[in-house]
């Protein structure tokens, strides 16, 4: 019948073969084993197990294996470096390409609201009326001139600038 002491003894047997027990525990174990045949058997089997494990190493591969190991590893490292460098170059090229495309899109395809408004006849009329109301008197005689000049002046200018330009134009032609 196995007792709690036997379980403790089994733990000590493994510890003794693995790391060595301190003197007190070793003494206790020896006394227990002397009186307990199953634990003595466990100790003998565990000793065989540890010894067999040491003999159980797979055969060490020969020199040819290690020569090919070194050369293959070197080749694999070189290949990886090449791949990494190439992928780095592609990343850089891709970044520049994306930046160039973005710049192209910004400069060519983003609509200019003022230009749209003036190019569209309906919007241009509304714009002219608003400008006439805001900036001063309008007359049919000066209207073609206003339209012509205002079309030039409106682009990219704020309303105050337009007012200034408008009066400058009026003075010049008044």
């Amino acid at each position: 019948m196995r007792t709690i002491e036997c379980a403790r003894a089994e733990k000590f047997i493994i510890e003794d073969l693995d790391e060595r027990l301190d003197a007190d525990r070793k003494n206790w174990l020896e006394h227990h084993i002397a009186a307990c045949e199953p634990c003595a058997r466990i100790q003998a089997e565990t000793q065989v197990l540890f010894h067999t494990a040491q003999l159980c190493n797979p055969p060490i591969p020969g020199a040819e294996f290690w020569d090919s190991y070194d050369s293959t590893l070197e080749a694999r490292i070189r290949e990886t470096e090449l791949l990494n460098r190439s992928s780095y170059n592609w990343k850089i090229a891709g970044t520049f390409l994306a930046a160039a495309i973005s710049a192209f899109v910004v400069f060519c395809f983003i609509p200019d609201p003022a230009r749209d408004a003036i190019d569209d006849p309906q919007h241009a009329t509304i714009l002219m009326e608003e400008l006439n109301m805001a900036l001063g008197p309008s007359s049919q005689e000066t209207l073609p001139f206003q339209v012509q000049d205002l079309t030039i002046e409106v682009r990219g200018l704020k309303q105050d600038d337009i007012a200034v330009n408008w009066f400058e134009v009026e003075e010049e032609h008044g």
Partner: protein
Amino acid sequence: MNDDDLVQQFRNGRKDAFSELVKRYAKPLTMTILRLVRDQEEAKDISQTVFLKVYEGLPGFMMASSFKTWLYSIALNAVRDHLRVKKRSPVADYDFDDFPDESASVPDLLDSARMRKSLRDALEQLPEKQKVTFSLRIYENMDYKQIAAVMGGTEGGARGNFFQAVKTLRQKMLFSEARDFANDNGRVPDPEKGRPS
């Protein structure tokens, strides 16, 4: 020059420092992997893959653990992935007609090739953690702290895994057959059951 110096040199651009690390660890690492996968070409491939990962990872290695611990933890993950893909099943092909002689003593069993095969097969049947712990403890002489760092657990857990591995191996090895055989003849007590009546 220790491993940390070599790591530092590699980071400073000296490629030959990596060659020195390979020279130091290629053999023990490959042998450890070989014990787990049991095929030389597979072991070589896994071991080289590990060094490739190390080569790429060294610039970012924080040195929180030792280089050896880091290297072996990468290797164990690689072995785990490899075995998962291969789904290797345990091998157990004893010739059951070939029981040891009833008079066979422990020394007789000691050098027998059958005992070694018995141990190898019993190892194959162990849970992965126990198998790896046993291998690192017996063959790499790692202490439990190192094993815990490599496997990502506690020192007590590593110790427990080793104890359980030894216990299971002892129970699964040919000892059990020898005991049954001897018990039938009323000669040897079964340690698991106690004294023969």
